């Protein structure tokens, strides 16, 4: 149950939570993404570390294909209090889904031997080798055929014990569902029941700013004169709603839309991206077109979503991934409602099933049946 504490604002509450973390954990690592939420959290934690003359880790898993503004932001955070910062900027090879191309459905970021077309060169103070032993590596993703983003995170966390990982997840932010899931079971930290985190192996993951709203975040950034990614200002100038602004990764299946604006925000990054991976130009021009990537409107030369789905499946270029789709779809109902979602998965090359399919009877058919009954 959610309970308001009218004597305390979110800033004071977050400071108390962070102080509690410092009292109870010797090793603290903040995950940063370059976005506004993790910028705020990192600054709160760094300030506490500075006051206590302690050192905390700032962890950034670098996907290579990101805004230059993100990189600048990470560099800024790493240098607020360098004497209190353990720089955990990871630049290793792993697999990313490229939802913009069916032929090149996977991007190996920082792929060995391709350094000439990397988006940028690696920073000399960063970590280039996997910090875990090769024989201990786990969490391989069968669909991907290797280690993905979350696999790297898990292996990274397994390198530590009794460590508090701080994450800038907000309940009112992007993932209310994820928030409910993580707080289902309180954790016990030295006798205290903590509802804003979860146990993760031998460590804990904590969310000290879970109750902040986006305006609290911006107010904190203003008050402390923090630098933030310019992408937010660009999005504001382009008329984005303030609560819907994101500085996300550039190519995975939920963020391909950010490519539409990229030439206007960071032309140099866009030029490099064109050379780096296939499918970018097509996604940039059609990303906003509801027919293509959103799969809202049926292309006019197909008479149903089922026909369109079968066409997409039959012409899918990669046989291994084609089987993944075919197998998954064979367990689904065969109706227009489901077929449209299947089309979207194929178009976005979502062989990993990240955009889950609602497998249920077509609500339109139900409605038609209902009216048949009534009339």
């Amino acid at each position, binding site marked *: *149950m*959610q*309970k*308001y*504490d*009218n004597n*305390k*604002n*979110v*800033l*004071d*509450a*977050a400071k108390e939570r962070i102080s509690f973390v410092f009292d109870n954990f010797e090793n603290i690592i903040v995950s940063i993404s370059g976005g506004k939420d993790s910028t705020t959290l990192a600054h709160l934690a760094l300030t506490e570390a500075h006051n206590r003359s302690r050192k905390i880790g700032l962890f950034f898993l670098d996907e290579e294909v990101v805004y230059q503004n993100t990189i600048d932001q990470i560099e800024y955070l790493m240098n607020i209090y360098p004497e209190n910062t353990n720089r955990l900027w990871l630049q290793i090879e792993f697999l990313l889904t490229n939802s913009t191309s069916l032929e090149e459905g996977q991007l190996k970021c920082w792929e060995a031997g391709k350094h000439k077309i990397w988006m940028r060169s690696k920073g000399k103070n960063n970590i280039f080798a996997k910090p875990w032993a090769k024989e201990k590596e786990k969490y391989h993703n069968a669909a991907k055929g290797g280690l993905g983003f979350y696999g790297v995170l898990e292996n990274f966390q397994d390198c530590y014990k009794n460590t508090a990982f701080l994450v800038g997840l907000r309940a009112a932010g992007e993932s209310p569902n994820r928030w409910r899931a993580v*707080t289902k079971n*309180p954790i016990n930290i030295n006798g205290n029941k903590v*509802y*804003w985190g979860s146990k993760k192996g031998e460590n804990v993951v904590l969310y000290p700013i879970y*109750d*902040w*709203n986006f*305006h*609290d975040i*911006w*107010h904190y*950034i*203003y008050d402390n004169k*923090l630098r*933030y990614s*310019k992408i*937010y*200002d*660009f999005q*504001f*100038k*382009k*008329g984005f709603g*303030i609560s819907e602004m994101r500085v996300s990764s550039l190519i995975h299946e939920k963020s391909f839309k950010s490519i539409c604006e990229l*030439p*206007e*925000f960071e*032309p140099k990054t866009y030029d490099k991206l064109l050379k780096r991976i296939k499918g970018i130009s097509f996604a940039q021009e059609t990303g906003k077109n509801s027919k293509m990537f959103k799969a809202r409107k049926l292309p006019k030369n197909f008479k149903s979503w089922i026909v369109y789905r079968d066409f997409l499946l039959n012409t899918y270029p990669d046989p291994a991934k084609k089987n993944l789709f075919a197998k998954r779809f064979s367990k689904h109902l065969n109706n227009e409602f489901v077929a449209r979602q299947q089309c979207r998965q194929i178009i976005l090359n979502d062989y990993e099933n990240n955009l889950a399919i609602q497998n249920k009877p077509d609500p339109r058919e139900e409605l038609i049946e209902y009216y048949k009954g009534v009339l």
Partner: protein
Amino acid sequence: MKIKIPCMNIKLVSRDMVIANSYNPNSVPINKMELLKQSIIDNGFCFPIVTIWDNDLEKYVIIDGFHRFTICQPNWLDITEVPIVVLDHDISKRMAATMQFNKARGVHQVDLDADLIRSLLEQGQNEEEISIHLGIDTETIHRYKSLTGIAELFKNSQYSMSWSVEEE
């Protein structure tokens, strides 16, 4: 490579001699049509309409410039004599040319666009003039005007009250 310069051979023909093609995929939103009209008023007709001569129809068929041609119609600026150039292309080359003319163009970098608008304001133009001549609504001008960025907007906001989760 020898590059031809068809724009050196412009002729004025009657509006009725020119017709649209059947395949043009380009669409121009209404606010951009207003901007095109304003551009032709401010700058004159700087770019001829690109056509081919069709022997069967006995008309000039447009390859590029359909929307400039639309502006010549009675419900817009009512220009009866239109400047054209005539290319010698077969149908597939024509379609490719249409695509090339429409797509080979840049976009404006957001922050540089904003700089440009601020500098016009500094030169003494008012927002209304800028809005008409650049085809930008005033809300966008306001957004472009702000140098300070998004955090400044939350200068006076108050922190919200904290809450916690408890067992039922």
